[in-house]
């Protein structure tokens, strides 16, 4: 029996799976195989992706409602066929699509959903405790933050909405900000946590991630104000980070 080369068959089968238009799908279907269930595979494909998006973006689902979520999920699946071997990677651009659809709240909620999921399975680290500070050479020490840390820009109060939806509390009214704020998400033990970042922290976070020493960061903060106040402010943030299990090491 002459059979179609495997690569041709597999390429055509995948095109058929992706093709949402029933007429086009019907043209691709003949000779794909015989049996009762060609459509079973197309159903499995789309259902699995919708469920993956639903599982990754639970608060966005709650905010949008099932019907609106499924509509945008279908739009996303048509535009973004999965390519990675793990289904966990699917939907990385879902929040961008919601933003592009002019739904900033849903977009920010989805971005938080995604970040929480990433933080949940982020690399483990044993946080530095306060009693380790005595041995630090502060002239050269670089703060290394825990590897699960994610910084996320938002332009709404989606963080407050997200927490209310997660805790089944009364959901506050949406607020749209002119200036983006930064959220930080990381893991304490096994639990993801999230809060807003203040301006001094923003500088310290970005400069620490870039490899600047604590002393250098204090110097940079002092350039825009009083040196003693800058050191005090930086020290306060450092103490907070230690208490929040945010520091993995001093390099």
């Amino acid at each position: 029996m002459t059979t179609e080369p495997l690569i041709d068959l597999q390429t055509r089968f995948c095109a058929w799976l992706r093709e949402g238009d029933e007429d086009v799908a019907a043209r691709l279907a003949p000779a794909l195989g015989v049996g009762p269930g060609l459509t079973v595979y197309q159903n499995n494909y789309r259902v699995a992706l919708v469920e993956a998006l639903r599982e990754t973006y639970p608060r966005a689902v709650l905010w949008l409602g099932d019907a609106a979520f499924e509509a945008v999920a279908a739009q996303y699946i048509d535009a973004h066929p999965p390519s990675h071997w793990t289904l966990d990677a699917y939907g990385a651009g879902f929040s961008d699509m919601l933003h592009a659809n002019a739904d900033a709240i849903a977009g920010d909620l989805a971005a938080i959903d995604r970040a929480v999921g990433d933080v949940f399975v982020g690399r483990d680290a044993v946080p530095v405790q306060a009693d380790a500070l005595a041995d630090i050479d502060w002239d050269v020490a670089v703060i290394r933050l825990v590897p699960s840390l994610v910084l996320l820009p938002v332009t709404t109060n989606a963080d407050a909405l997200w927490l209310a939806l997660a805790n089944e509390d009364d959901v506050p009214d949406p607020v749209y900000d002119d200036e983006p704020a930064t959220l930080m998400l990381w893991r304490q033990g096994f639990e993801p946590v999230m809060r807003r970042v203040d301006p001094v922290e923003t500088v310290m976070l970005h400069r620490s991630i870039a490899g600047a020493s604590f002393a250098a960061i204090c110097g940079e903060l002092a350039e825009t104000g009083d040196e003693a106040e800058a050191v005090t402010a930086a020290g306060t943030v450092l103490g907070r980070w230690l208490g929040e299990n945010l520091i993995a090491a001093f390099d």
Partner: protein
Amino acid sequence: MTNALSGFGLGMRRPHYASFVTGEAPVDFVEVISENFMVAGGRPIDTLTRAREHYPVALHGVSLSVGSVDGPHPDYLDRLKILVDRIEPAVVSDHLCWTGVGAFNSHDLLPVPLTEEALDTVCQAIDRAQTHLKRQMLFENPSTYIEFPGTMPEWEFLSEMVRRTGCGLLLDVNNIFVTASNHGLDPLDWLNGLPLHAVEQIHLAGHSQSTHGLIDTHDAMVDPAVWALYTETIRRTGARPTMIERDGDIPSLDDLVGELALARRAATVPA
């Protein structure tokens, strides 16, 4: 904790994690979906590590894609190796299937055409995977809903796959029943045609009837006809580690343990 599968186990699913990490679940082994634990850190790794302290573990993958012309993804193999080294499982398995080609992954277990070319592709991929992991793997017979034009029956394909690669078989009795029903075949043809000495583990699961035939949904109790086929399988293979997969409409752990008792009974073959 012994590191070999025997007796009767369950798929470890999220609603029942608490009973597995404490060792309270009355099972002989657990099986987990490998990909759920191929992560950098956090609670999933801790959960599996703690369960491993109480039970032998079978890692069961869905993404190796041995039937794809692309072969297994290098990153996938690396991540699986890390998990294998970390958990030291009793068994590592995947499916006779493919999931995608090129820059597309369907995340479904797609049917392999039963041809010589596909057999070569599958065997090369299994060789690569077993070499990378430095251990034998088991491969599961699939539920299929279509048949591509092919040149051999599934049992012959699987037999040759075992002969060429030295892999073992994870015999899914429900999949035999579903595939045979969908294609008008006799389930006993699998038992007659497979190298049963290579069967290292057995899966049982429920299926559902759709307008397109039987579907391997894992969302119901094992069908009576599948129990009968399982008893016949054990009569031919002797005792084999057996487990029930349940992924939808998941009942209480007590209910699943009760269903597992049916497996113990069904495996008690009169001399």
